[in-house]
């Protein structure tokens, strides 16, 4: 075989990894890579408009498909623009490989033009990172990067690629397998621990299942469903796991936590056993730790040992892959007799559903979400961050794994539009609905350009309350209504702006127009459609567990 340039070795290696799309932006220190991509029709290059958007698009692709997303940027500012996207993927354990160009090795450390120590910058926000200094290393590093990104607890891996290594030549030899002696994730739970957990389950009187994003990541929705149904234990699924268990099922207590259902939060507080699967006892779920589930034994199944016992003391830790551990447990468990407890959770569920009050003739944001659910029940929903995200989580009833994509951990506003682009490319046959906020939409609005260019039939629905609504809500409740830096009435007309981008843009200001507009959007498939729903500005998200309160002290709503 003829020697080839490092940049071409990279492309050949990416082909071996089965890479279908690269999201990226060109620039000086990455030019040889983009040049090599010019001759690689198997890999489709998606030119985004900002590196942050490219990172979120790769992330959205990975969330929608489970396949490693790939983003490519140049050195310096290109690389630093990826930082938010990498941190977003890291917090939610999304498999991603971020490739950055780097200046020539002899210039590194010299404050060269567009130089930045991106390995140093990203060290705390990625699973691992590599610097390619010679073309000889390219294939091995790419193989290791993909292996690390996609196995164990997945996460983003940064590959920084010096320009001289991109240009110098080596023979292509792709490793047949990857063996990293310091990296051997345990996937099978310990049988003795599993037996202990099963015993606790069989003896529990008030057990609940608490499942999170790990179930989605390990494709364990089927096993989770079997586990819940076989044991008959009621289940709450976190923001990151929504859809992993159908919210339409009688056992579902819906989402827990700060803006979760009263049923789930009361159940945590009264339970005598919590079986946590791929969830990490996040502060937004537990509320005040001292008051969290005081009577419960805790079983925690997680692939990352450092997640177990981090926030909450665990009685039975099980380190392993959710799918494998649940499959094993399903062989051992039987139905548990918890009739009085089931009556109690059903009562809470019936008594305290998610609810809101219509205010005058305003469009209530929750109403819009309910209509989206009725018209697009099977769509993949890509949510952003803020009030609309919570309303979407509450009022859309998710039934499938990977049906809900959002930045849960880092809470990155601006995530959703570029992520929707990645999701649509990864799932061309699915309807992708982007539920966005007026504040988050404008943070990455430039990514409407590639959506239009690629003729992606995205449904972009803006829940526009002319405020940074979640912050405004906190100011109303905890800062004496001092509305500092949250008023967004000066935003442009998003419908007109969409048209300027070449998309379809609609503005909806009356209740009776909500459904017809959503129906209309269903039939616009030659490109993205943006609907700007002008909703009630004053609506807040309830229920709410205020900071410092226990889950049992949830505020159900304001009178």
């Amino acid at each position: 075989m003829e020697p080839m340039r490092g940049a071409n070795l990279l492309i050949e290696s990416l082909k071996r990894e089965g890479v279908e799309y690269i999201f990226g932006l060109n620039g000086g220190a990455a030019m040889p890579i983009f040049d090599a991509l010019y001759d690689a029709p198997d890999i489709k290059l998606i030119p985004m408009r900002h590196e942050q958007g490219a990172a979120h698009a790769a992330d959205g692709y990975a969330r929608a498909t489970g396949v490693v997303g790939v983003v490519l940027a140049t050195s310096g500012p290109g690389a630093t623009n990826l930082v938010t996207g990498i941190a977003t993927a890291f917090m939610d354990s999304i498999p991603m490989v971020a490739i950055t160009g780097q200046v020539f090795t002899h210039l590194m450390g010299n404050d060269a033009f567009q130089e930045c120590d991106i390995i140093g910058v990203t060290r705390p926000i990625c699973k691992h990172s590599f610097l390619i200094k010679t073309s000889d290393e390219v294939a091995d590093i790419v193989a290791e990067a993909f292996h690390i990104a996609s196995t164990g607890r997945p996460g983003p891996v940064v590959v920084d690629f010096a320009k001289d290594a991109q240009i110098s030549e080596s023979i292509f030899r792709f490793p047949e397998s990857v063996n990293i002696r310091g990296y051997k994730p345990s996937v099978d739970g310990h049988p003795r621990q599993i037996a202990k957990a099963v015993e606790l389950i069989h003896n529990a009187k008030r057990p609940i299942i608490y499942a999170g994003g790990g179930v989605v990541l390990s494709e364990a929705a089927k096993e989770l469903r079997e586990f819940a149904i076989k044991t008959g234990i009621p289940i709450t699924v976190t923001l990151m796991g929504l859809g992993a268990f159908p919210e339409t099922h009688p056992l579902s207590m819906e989402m827990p936590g700060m803006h979760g259902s009263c049923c789930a939060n009361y159940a945590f507080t009264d339970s005598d056993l919590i079986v946590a699967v791929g969830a990490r006892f996040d502060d937004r779920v537990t509320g005040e730790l001292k008051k969290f589930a005081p009577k419960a034994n805790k079983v925690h199944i997680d692939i990352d040992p450092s997640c177990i016992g981090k926030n909450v003391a665990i009685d039975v830790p099980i380190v392993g892959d959710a799918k494998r551990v649940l499959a094993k447990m399903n062989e051992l468990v039987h139905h548990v007799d918890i009739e009085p407890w089931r009556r109690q959770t059903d009562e809470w569920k019936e008594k305290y559903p998610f609810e809101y009050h219509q205010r005058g003739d305003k469009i209530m944001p929750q109403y819009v979400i309910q209509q989206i659910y009725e018209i697009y029940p099977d769509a993949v929903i890509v949510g952003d961050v803020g009030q609309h995200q919570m309303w979407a989580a509450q009022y859309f009833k998710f039934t499938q794994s990977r049906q809900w994509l959002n930045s849960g951990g880092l809470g990155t506003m601006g995530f959703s539009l570029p992520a929707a682009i990645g999701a649509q490319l990864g799932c061309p046959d699915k309807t992708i609905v982007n539920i966005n906020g007026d504040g988050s939409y404008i943070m990455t609005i430039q990514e409407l350009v590639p959506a239009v260019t690629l003729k992606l039939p995205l449904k972009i629905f803006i829940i526009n309350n002319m405020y940074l609504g979640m912050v405004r809500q906190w100011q109303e409740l905890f800062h004496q209504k001092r509305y500092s830096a949250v008023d967004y009435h000066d935003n442009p007309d998003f419908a007109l702006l969409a048209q300027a981008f070449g998309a379809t843009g609609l503005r909806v200001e009356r209740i009776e127009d909500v459904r017809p507009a959503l129906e209309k959007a269903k039939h616009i498939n030659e490109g993205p459609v943006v609907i700007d729903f002008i909703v009630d500005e004053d609506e807040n998200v309830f229920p709410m567990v205020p900071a410092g309160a226990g889950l049992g002290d949830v505020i159900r709503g304001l009178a």
Partner: protein
Amino acid sequence: MLEDRHIFSVLVENRFGVLARIAGLFSGRGYNIDSLNVAETDHPEISHMTIVTHGDAQIIEQIYKHLNKLIDVIKVTDLTTENHVERELVLIKMNASPNRRGEILQIVEIFRARTVDVSPATLTIEITGDEGKLKAVIDMLRPYGIQELVRTGKIAIMRGAAK
């Protein structure tokens, strides 16, 4: 909660950036490193680190788990829970005018330390030992006037046959 000192013995890949990853693990979580020693093992591609740190049981468990989580970390042992030998080397430069030199040298002898450098006004002493011995010798020498003191940080090894 009770804070304990722990000695972690860590085998790592001998690559650039590994030390930064380990340091970042501590600094990013607000944990403290009391001492850190790094050097190659007899396999040039593997380095050994001895990290002395302190914290309550929960923090120590997190440190152990996060060290293990690093891709470049091959093996982590909490030596505190094992039967082990620990040593540290200290170099001490003393103020030593000719009339005090004799007394200092006596202390050096008693503790089986060594004199490694001498000048008209100073005496440099090398001493190896565990924490208790080093503290004792430094306490004895202090009244004579310590000009400068450097220590390697602890290194430690498990006793007996490898498990």
